[in-house]
């Protein structure tokens, strides 16, 4: 029955007829295809590499048959198993150190009257902007056992011959890994502290709990979810890092998973074995995620979502400056010291020479910018990939968050799960998955910028997605209904209301991703081609050639470019319309 006859016949309520339909043309929403396309992109981006990885791990490279031999090869040697246990040990130690750095700083900056809070905040952000491998090089210059600045000062001061500190050790590896990532802990825990209402603490005080008891029984349990969440992320970040282990774990002779993976990637190329070696890593992270959920669910922390009421700062009294000293020490370890020695090296003929006018030179910068065959290109590529990947991740995340939050498609929760799942995939494993899925024919994306941007965007999609979901939650659905009933489609909704309202939130997320993407090494190391080298890879090569001065100069240039983009972003955010509301 056609709709035409339906409307003419059905002229009275009593004569209802079933089986009639609204004309197809007027039902059509072209955007629906777009939603499906987006969902498909997501599935392809995440499921394809991961399933290729898992399938490859069970596939015989020669015959293509099903096999377990890859696992036997991957875990058949004691050394390979040691690398895994070492990685877990290192991950645990790094998490402990990051918490030791991040949590007190977060508390001091949000809940106390410590002086110099902004200084500390800038410092922590500086530690975030500094790529981990650059921090690692800084610490090699600081704490090399014989020539490190700290040890030379120690020899000079005490006449000792044994070094005071040695970066090429387990703890050196842990320290250098931790300083690069505690920013995340700081941000997570800070925002949790900001959520806590002073009244919750007052309630405990009234009932007779002293300040220490209140802190232990009330305040810290309330931020526990944030601590656990950031601990998990820290762990994943630590075990997936490639640059720092390459610089430090090899001389420290402390084999870790990423080094072992690169062995499987060297001759003879054993992608399948690398895949098999990665799968337990995936299982461990999924297990940790489950554990985190279990802990949080049992205690029912879900109430910590409301707005913080009035917050009073804890008066530290004479401990104010002690707290500041601790914070400053952390910032010094994380960014000030390594950055200063890097600068010294960058402007010096030889990094071991003292800093005097005679040794001052701009040659390293000139070489890095104009003579080195790939670094100029790499600087542009790094920043370009950062911009492209951050934009792609944010746009994709916004649309997915919209689909999920507004239930545009069925199975939205599956999409949400997919979007956050790169969270549990170590970057290096993701890179191997991408390599296996896209580098080879038929897609043959090896050596293209496309594969780099896709991989990096996928890697940081969870950050983008969490940002976008939080933003979407803050928008009343009726804001969108209002657009639609006035004649705007869903795209119109996103363009004219959701997008502009989330501008600030999204721009914040964009900046975070940009910084991470422009520095990204773990993913890039297996995916760059000769013409798509990024700064991180060039820096790693320079470190292997021992060209510390040029490395420092090029690293400084990368930092400058990142800071420039961040500064533009912050300026833009600062001039946003939202400011007019206050």
């Amino acid at each position, binding site marked *: 029955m056609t709709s035409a006859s339906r409307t003419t016949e059905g002229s009275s309520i009593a004569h209802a007829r079933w089986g009639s339909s609204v004309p197809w043309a007027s039902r059509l929403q072209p955007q629906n295809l777009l939603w499906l396309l987006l969902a498909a992109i997501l599935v392809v981006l995440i499921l394809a590499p991961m399933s290729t990885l898992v399938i490859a791990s069970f596939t015989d490279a020669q015959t293509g048959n099903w096999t377990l031999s890859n696992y036997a090869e991957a875990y058949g040697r004691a050394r390979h198993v040691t690398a895994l246990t070492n990685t877990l040990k290192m991950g645990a130690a790094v998490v402990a150190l990051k918490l030791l750095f991040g949590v007190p700083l977060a508390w001091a900056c949000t809940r106390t009257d410590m002086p110099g809070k902004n200084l500390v905040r800038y410092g922590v952000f500086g530690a975030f902007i500094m790529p981990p491998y650059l921090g690692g090089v800084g610490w090699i210059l600081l704490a090399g056992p014989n020539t490190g600045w700290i040890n030379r000062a120690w020899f000079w001061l005490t006449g000792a011959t044994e070094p005071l500190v040695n970066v090429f050790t387990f703890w050196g590896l842990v320290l250098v890994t931790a300083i690069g990532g505690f920013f995340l802990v700081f941000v997570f825990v800070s925002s949790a502290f900001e959520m806590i209402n002073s009244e919750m603490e007052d309630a405990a005080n009234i009932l007779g709990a002293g300040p220490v008891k209140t802190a232990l029984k009330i305040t810290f349990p309330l931020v526990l979810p944030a601590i656990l969440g950031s601990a998990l992320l820290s762990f994943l970040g630590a075990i997936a890092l490639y640059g720092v282990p390459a610089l430090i774990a090899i001389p420290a002779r402390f084999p870790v998973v990423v080094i072992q993976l690169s062995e499987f990637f*060297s001759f003879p190329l054993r992608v399948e074995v690398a895949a098999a070696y990665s799968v337990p890593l995936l299982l461990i992270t999924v297990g940790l995620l489950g554990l985190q959920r279990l802990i949080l669910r049992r205690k029912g922390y879900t109430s910590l979502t409301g707005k913080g009421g009035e917050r009073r700062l804890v008066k530290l009294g004479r401990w104010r400056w002690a707290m500041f000293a601790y914070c400053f020490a952390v910032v010094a370890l994380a960014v000030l010291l390594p950055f200063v020695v890097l600068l010294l090296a960058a402007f010096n003929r030889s990094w071991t020479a003292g800093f005097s006018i005679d040794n001052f030179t701009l040659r390293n910068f000139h070489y890095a910018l104009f003579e080195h065959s790939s670094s100029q290109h790499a600087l542009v590529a790094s920043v370009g990939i950062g911009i492209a990947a951050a934009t792609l991740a944010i746009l994709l995340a916004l649309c997915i968050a919209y689909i999920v939050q507004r239930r545009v498609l069925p199975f939205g929760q599956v999409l949400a799960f997919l979007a956050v799942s790169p969270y549990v995939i170590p970057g290096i494993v993701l890179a191997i998955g991408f390599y296996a899925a896209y580098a080879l024919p038929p897609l043959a994306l090896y050596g293209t910028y496309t594969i780099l941007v896709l991989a990096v965007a996928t890697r940081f999609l969870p950050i983008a997605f969490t940002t976008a979901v939080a933003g979407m939650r803050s928008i009343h659905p009726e804001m969108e209904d209002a657009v639609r009933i006035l004649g705007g489609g869903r795209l119109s909704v996103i363009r004219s209301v959701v997008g502009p309202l989330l501008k600030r939130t999204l721009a914040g997320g964009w900046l975070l991703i940009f910084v991470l993407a422009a520095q990204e090494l773990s993913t890039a190391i297996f995916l760059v081609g000769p013409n798509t080298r990024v700064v991180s890879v060039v820096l790693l090569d320079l470190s292997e050639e021992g060209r510390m001065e040029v490395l420092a100069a090029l690293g400084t240039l990368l930092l400058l470019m990142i800071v420039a983009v961040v500064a533009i972003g912050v300026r833009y955010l600062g001039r946003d319309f939202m400011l007019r509301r206050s």
Partner: protein
Amino acid sequence: MIGRLTLAAFISAAFISHTSAETNYTPNEQALYEAAKSEGSVTWYVSQYNTENADTICSLFSERYPGVACNPVRSTGQVAFQRIQQELQAGALQADVFSTNEDSQVLQLKGAGQLLKYVPENLQHVVPRIREMGDPDGYWVASGVSPVVILYNTKLVPEEEAPRNWTDLYDPKWKSQVAIGHPSFSGAVGVWATAINDLYGWEFFEKLEQNQPHISRSILDAQNLVGTGERKISIASLSVALQDMHLSGAPTAMVAPTDGMVMPVSVTSVLDAAQRPNAGKLLQEFLLSVEVSEYLASIYRYPLRPEVEVPKGSISLDEPNLIFIPAQEALDKSMEIQGNFRDTFGI
């Protein structure tokens, strides 16, 4: 300012005098050049030189052959080889020419039929001792030699205390003062490890391990640690050591070990699946030219052409205790050596 200009003028004059003398290409060279021009560029995976030297050779190449860009991609031998493997697997070979310090790698590629057979015209003019290190079947040429020697820091180690032979490296007096490279990253280190294993058996490395050597990735980094004073002694590539001493003023000196100097051969080949085979062949020709040999001598590397004088401080290639490891032997032992190394040093 004036000083710099004069120097620049001198250098360019020195090079121009040669290039102008040679600008008349041979017919074969002319044909390759024409074909290379239409290919536009050549991508050179190179572990034989450091980035700076590779960059210079590339710019010399493009000066002589305008219209053919040269993109050097410098990494350690194993990394370059791994990339080529990856690219072949991906069916997207980027490299046209491959120069490595480990001839077992090209032997491997030859066995898999992945090399292009090409006997460069310039090969006949190369020093015979070096020429015969190439592939008799014409799949690769020897493009450089540099013995592996012992390097020490002259500020930290008096000459009389410097090690004399390889076994001195595990003398307990050098505990925590030795630097070596990693055979899974560096081809030269791989050849060195194979030769040492032949000489003394694997025990050598077990004893060396007792001395807690610093494990770098490349041999360059290892000797750089001696230059900065981070370590007192290291294994080193002779040419690079000379280069550092003379051009950068590194406070180092080297010792030719009495028990034998390992001689890794650097080789260059054009890949069969190269996207720009003619430009590749042209680069291979160029590497064997007098012009490059002059540049090599200026950076204290062995020239390949007899017309150019060997730099001072180099060891004669006719020295009796030079150790060559045939490519086939290196290939056969490569996996075992790397595995043993990882097992012994735990990394």
